[in-house]
């Protein structure tokens, strides 16, 4: 049974978790602010339509294939997030923290959150969102002297770039499906999904505009665009506020890990209810290990997106018949 969480709080926790990949970027965006804004505006309705069957498919009586693919996507997403956060942290802080200690500390904190359950994770998301909001204000204050409206690049005909940038914006992440899974009814799920998508698009666009206003044309080529902006900022004698930002963003990554792992475990409880059926976890874990060993982060993100697309396609399958 899923815990009762108000729709507002459901939206809030998913939205907060979605901020992590936006802030912890480790690859160049390849698109300027104008294209990003347009791509986001186009992506929101498209994603919303794509996600429409999610509520039906992820219901307890929905197709097993749908929930199975969703669980697999969550597993890949957890691995991706762990990898992305590790790479971001080591790139930005230049510490010689070993992979073992990184994994041990992050997984310990993550498991504590998972143990707390969705209620605890949701309330914690409020705290992290407050921290993130404070960090955002600090970030703006610290770079206000370097903001140049003239740095914003205007492309005369952005259509070509838009078509190139749109697939990246349409890439599905498991958090998009979470509102549909958590909400009591598909209709409520659709409402929360719309709100989350809108929030996600606004933040994505705002970050792109901020990044380009500070970094100019170089924004699209930065490996860590948001971090680079944070690194340039400073207030009075405080020149290393980036450490504060990195800490807050790592908290968001941790929240995303907690939420995804909690959802994954809940799904697996429903999918593999008996001890005998849990042997399926062995090949599943092995497949994930192979994926981790052979694929790049970008490829894993596409695998995750593919699994979610499969889940949505499976949601269109007819529902299981109830046994009399």
């Amino acid at each position: 049974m899923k815990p009762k969480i108000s729709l507002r709080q459901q939206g809030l926790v998913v939205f907060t978790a979605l901020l992590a990949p936006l802030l912890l970027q480790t690859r160049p965006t390849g698109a300027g602010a104008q294209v990003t804004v347009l791509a986001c505006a186009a992506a929101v309705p498209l994603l919303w339509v794509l996600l429409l069957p999610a509520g039906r498919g992820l219901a307890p009586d929905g197709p097993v294939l749908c929930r199975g693919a969703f669980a697999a996507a969550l597993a890949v997403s957890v691995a991706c997030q762990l990898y992305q956060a590790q790479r971001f942290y080591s790139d930005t802080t230049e510490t010689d923290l070993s992979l073992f200690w990184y994994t041990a500390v992050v997984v310990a904190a993550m498991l504590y959150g998972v143990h707390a359950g969705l209620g605890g994770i949701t309330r914690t998301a409020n705290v992290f969102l407050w921290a993130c909001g404070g960090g955002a204000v600090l970030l703006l204050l610290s770079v206000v002297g370097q903001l140049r409206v003239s740095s914003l690049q205007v492309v005369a005909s952005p259509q070509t770039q838009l078509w190139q940038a749109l697939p990246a914006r349409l890439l599905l992440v498991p958090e998009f499906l979470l509102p549909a899974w958590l909400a009591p009814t598909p209709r409520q799920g659709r409402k929360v999904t719309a709100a989350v998508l809108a929030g996600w698009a606004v933040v994505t666009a705002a970050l792109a505009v901020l990044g380009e206003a500070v970094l100019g044309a170089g924004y699209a080529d930065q490996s860590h665009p948001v971090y680079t902006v944070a690194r340039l900022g400073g207030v009075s004698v405080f020149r290393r506020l980036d450490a504060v930002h990195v800490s807050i963003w790592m908290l968001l990554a941790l929240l995303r890990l907690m939420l995804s792992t909690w959802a994954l475990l809940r799904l697996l409880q429903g999918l593999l209810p008996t001890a005998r059926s849990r042997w399926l976890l062995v090949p599943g874990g092995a497949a994930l290990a192979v994926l981790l060993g052979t694929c790049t982060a970008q490829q894993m993100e596409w695998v995750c997106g593919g699994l979610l697309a499969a889940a949505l396609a499976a949601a269109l399958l007819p529902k299981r018949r109830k046994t009399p």
Partner: protein
Amino acid sequence: MSLKKLTGSLQKDLPVLKQMFGDSMDLYAKNLRIRGVECAACMFDGLSSTEKLWVILLDLLSRDGPPMPDGRALTDYILHASDLPVEATPVETFDDLVTRMTAGMTVLLVDGSPVAVALSSQLLAYRSVSEPSGEGNIRGSREGFCDLLRVNISLLRRLIRTPDLVIEMHTAGDLTGTEVALCYNRRLAPPELVEKVRQRLQNTKIPLLLDSSYLAPFLQRGPFSFFQQAGYTERSAAACAKICEGKLVLLVNGSPFAMILPHFFIENFQSLDDYATKAYFASLLRALKFLAFLLAVMLPGVYVAIAQFSPELFPPQLLYKVAAAERATPLPLFLEMIFVLILLEIVREAGLRLPKPIGHTVSLVSALIVGDAAINAGILSTPVVIVAAFTSISMFVIPALYEPATALRLLFTLAGGVAGLLGVACMFAVMAVSACNTDFLGMPYTAPLVPARPGMLRDGMFRFSWRVLARRPYTIREEVPPHETED
């Protein structure tokens, strides 16, 4: 304890009573004849006053009147026709007899009557009502709870003079039979909360109850948390204020600490003085206390994390000083910090448990030897001692959070030493989850901050002026589920 009824025969009841207390030397039982009926006055020496007793009895004996036909008639006369200071309800069982006697009353057993009479002759020695030592205030009432339950109840009743104040008596402690008073405002306290606490109180099985804090584990349920869902106060005015917010107050006989249920995180940063000063100043103080909490918990961990993993974050001048100090000491920074923190806790414990004059000596010795000699000898570095001292001073601002803050501070230092700023961030997440996951019967410990409620602005992180607070006083009914989460 026995629910056995009194037989009405002195020959039988008196030996049973004596046997129950194993012929204790403080048990006083005097046989006498009143209006021709055999009686026995039973009390505990020290709990009851023999002078008072004899004034009452002599008054009764000196009254002329016809002899009573039997014990029942005499009991009826004393209970209903005399003006003696007797309790309204007669004693019927041995259990009740013991309760009355241990409460300081004298019980008059009457031969031929199956009920006995309880006379009010209490003489209880107790610590007088005085100013609490551990809860300083500049303004407001100076009265603090004492150890006697009845006196504590009277302190509350004196402050809340409306019929809404309800005081329910319960008993807990198999070996001590301690009285517990559950106090609440029936108009403001959520009925489901009162009922749940009442049930849990009745189901509490504990061998002895010497302080209200013993009840905490029985009343608060749920997974492990660093934080307490119960608060404590020694001030009757503070308890009164909490009752006026719809909270429940538990008073335990023999303890001057009232337990407040539920207790929220933000309350650790509030004090009675907040409401006596200007609103902006009270808000500023709350922000300062919150900052002090973060410093007390995180400063050593952050210092170790930065110095060990990201020294470039220090300003250059500070970095040179830290590096020079660390180079001169034998222990790694991380271990040095843990060592100093543990040492400070040992010094604190020593100063707290020892008699006061020796306690001061401990502080002096530790300040001279640890603070000065260890630094001069190059065993400890000055920045580490400064950070630890600053942390301790910050801790004194929020004494209510001493226990979780001490444990968390060590964990933060450990995490910072092992994984740098990432460790500190992860530990912060653990602390946040721990606080956010704590609730009391569905009311979040982090209320009204998380999830954000209007109370947060009115009287949470900030305090609005009394004009605003008076318009819509805060009560915990705002926090009653279902409004957010319950697993």
